[in-house]
């Protein structure tokens, strides 16, 4: 058994390097694996039905070739990479795929997939409203409900209140543990590097929740006790942006005189700041995903029905959770990264940078095309940014 031979951080690294290894084993033992795209499909329902949720990422080292049949080059390359891997049959270990209308282009993955692949396995596309308005939360609850009905067919069983409650508690436990993991980077120097942290986060998204939780417990203990600590560096950074699931960027930043101590990305903290609240029903899930998760894809404003929009107040209402992270983790610079062609994050850039300016926090914006190749040109800019912070 692979699980027994390797533990803690080295297990996380092993899973990071071969993400589907563990779920393939589970599948051989009769488990059904459900891939999900982006962090809006409620994993609690997947877990509650005895299925294993597996987050789908692209592959930054794999050239995009097959996807050209169904997508153009002018769309988000993360989306293109997922389509590409799908068309190449690299998700053959999945019994189902759940997508969400997180952004217009991301939603297209499921549609293009269904049209391009004959006999696609179970797929579901969850509509996510654009705002956090109260009627939108109710509508989203209905969407979660139809997702639930549909995936019950795949699971061959019905969701009960009890199963859902247990799944919510387990995932909340994971959220708590992840917050503890991030706490390990509050000291200076941090006890864990950002690349190690990313490996753990990617591993969590490739494991059943209970295995992820025990992995986290082991890692927290291991890191707290380990003798070799990262060396002190000049600068403590926060990384912001859409999906980034590869250690390349973190390695690149940390090869300069900087630690990345916290992030606001959808592979990092975004899904873990807030817990699902009791009573653990579908409405609570709708509230959690649409309102409590802070991602630029959702339209938010300082006050509902406001008749005047004050720039500073607006920014503070949207970004003050970042301010809190900056204070709590002692951050002195922010790297805004985005994959090219991401509309939901792109429009945010000058405004978020302005907000950071008002906090006296320098920032830099870097753009890449979700490939390891596109990292190299960023290197000098990141290093120079770190040099300006000295």
């Amino acid at each position, binding site marked *: 058994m692979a699980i027994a031979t390797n533990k803690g951080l080295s297990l996380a690294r092993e899973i990071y390097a071969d993400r589907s290894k563990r779920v393939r084993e589970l599948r051989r033992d009769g488990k059904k694996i459900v891939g999900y795209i982006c962090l809006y499909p409620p994993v609690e329902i997947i877990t509650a039905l005895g299925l294993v949720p597996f987050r789908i990422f692209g592959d930054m080292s794999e050239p995009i070739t097959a996807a*050209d*049949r*169904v*997508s*153009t080059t*002018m*769309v*988000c390359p993360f989306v293109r990479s997922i389509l590409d891997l799908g068309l190449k049959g690299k998700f053959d270990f999945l019994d189902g795929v759940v997508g969400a*209308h997180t*952004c*217009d*282009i991301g*939603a*297209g993955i*499921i*549609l*293009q997939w*269904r*049209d*391009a692949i004959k006999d696609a396995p179970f*797929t*579901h*596309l*969850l*509509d996510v*409203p*654009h*705002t956090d*308005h109260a*009627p*939108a939360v*109710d*509508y989203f609850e*209905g969407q979660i409900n*139809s997702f639930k009905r549909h995936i019950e067919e795949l699971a061959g069983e019905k969701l009960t209140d009890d199963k859902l409650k247990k799944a919510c508690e387990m995932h909340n436990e994971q959220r708590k543990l992840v917050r503890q993991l991030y706490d390990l980077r509050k000291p200076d120097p941090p006890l864990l590097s950002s690349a190690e942290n990313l490996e753990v986060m990617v591993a969590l998204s490739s494991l059943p929740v209970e295995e992820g939780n025990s992995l986290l417990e082991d890692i927290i203990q291991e890191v707290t006790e380990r003798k070799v600590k990262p060396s002190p560096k000049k600068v403590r950074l926060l990384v912001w942006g859409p999906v980034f699931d590869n250690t390349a960027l973190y390695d690149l930043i940390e090869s300069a005189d900087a630690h990345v101590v916290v992030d606001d990305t959808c592979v990092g903290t975004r899904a873990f700041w807030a817990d699902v609240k009791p009573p653990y029903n579908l409405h609570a899930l709708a509230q959690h995903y649409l309102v409590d998760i802070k991602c*630029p*894809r959702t*339209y938010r*404003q300082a006050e509902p*029905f406001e*008749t*005047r*929009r004050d*720039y500073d107040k607006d*920014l503070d209402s949207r970004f003050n959770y970042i301010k809190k992270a900056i204070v709590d983790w002692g951050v002195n610079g922010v790297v805004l990264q*985005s994959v*090219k*062609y991401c*509309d*939901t994050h*792109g*429009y*945010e*850039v*000058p*405004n978020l*940078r*302005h907000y950071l300016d008002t906090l006296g926090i320098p920032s830099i*914006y870097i*753009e890449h095309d979700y490939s390891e190749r596109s990292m190299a040109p960023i290197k000098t800019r990141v290093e120079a940014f770190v040099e300006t912070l000295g």
Partner: protein
Amino acid sequence: MSDSVAPAKTEQKRAINRLKSMYPLRNLVAQDYINTLQASNEGKPTVWAMLNYWEGDLPLKAMGLNIVYPENYSTLMASSGTAEPFLDASDSDGFPTHMCGYGRSTIGYSFRMMKQNDGKIPPEAPMGGMAKPTLLLGSGIICDARFKWFQALSRYFDAPEWCLEMPMMGTFEGTEPDLEEYQVKFLVRELRDFIAFLEKLLGKKMDWAKLEELIEVGIKIHETCWQIHELRKVSPCPMHSTDFWSSMPPALFFAGDMYEALKCYQDMLTEVQERVKNKVAAINYPEKYRIVFAELPPWHSLKFFDNLAEMGWNFVYESYGYHNPRPPDLSKVSDPVEKLARLSRNFVFNVHPYAKADGIENPIVETYLRIAKGWKADGLFLHPLISCRAASAGLRSVQDQLQKRLDVPTLWVEGDIIDKRVFNPQETLARAEAFEQTMEHYRKVRKSRGLDW
């Protein structure tokens, strides 16, 4: 090769046979810019709105507001060749350069107005400019840019934004039983909140009678437009895509006075009927090929269609995102808000049942399959844009399925709605010439498969 784009030499006959009834429709939108400027000068509220497929337009109009649509204004900047400094201004204020060209030109416009020109209209703005907004109406229909970019404008304006909702889904989930009622319920609640917000903002009550009346006029406009475009199924096609683009604002976002618009569209219907009766084509050359255009046109290079018309290319349908579907029967619905919800929702969901029957998951693909069949397309001109994901992402699937299911070939030409520097007309014309042989070939293939065009 460069002389192939030069205007036809001797007799100055125009390659495209424009509809006379198009011109008054084209002028209606100009009226909106003037009215909005005037309203602004008088201290009255003004609105910048995104295309919202009528759920927001009609309440705004019923409240007597003057509205301009930056998406439309950006096409004016592009076609008048004035977009570039605004794009530069957007870049210089730190917005990434890969985003929607409409968004970037509007952002640049706002930057010029508020940061460099004291809140006044920048002197280089075409058509007298867009007046400063007191309300920004964003929309979640189709693309994310349309609420994100208005959100970003908080950088320049203290105008509040409202973001309209609309469910977006594919065929499978979009045809679930009971879905429509549950979506309408959601939209009705949203729209009631929106109207309550408008009442709060403007300090006056909604004129419900007016709203009902405008909904009825709007439905008539849409019914008329639908009839016009059905007539384009005949050969030779009596109306060219360029006439559609010039005349669409009064149906797409109810530009201008709606009663006048209805009359104009009725005139257009009459003119098109006349042409059909007399077999008059939309181009002054024999209709050799019937072409469908997807999706947004190169506004800066519309002249280019004249060159194609000279080659006998008639553009018989276009831009599904700019067409209204046939309006649903709402005669039994009494609540005007519910009518709005159903009218608007129908834009997104009208094609889903057909898609389901055909086993197509992406509604855009089904839309183009239906258009190609209905309008007997010899080919599709696909125009993926560097700056609009929404109108580009599905085009590969469209291409794939059209070829597979109907043997209709496609010409793939990369370009942009705003940035003319990425479009190469000479090269495209050369490719178009070669494409004729492809179209000829597939005509035969379709015949041999028993398809009727």
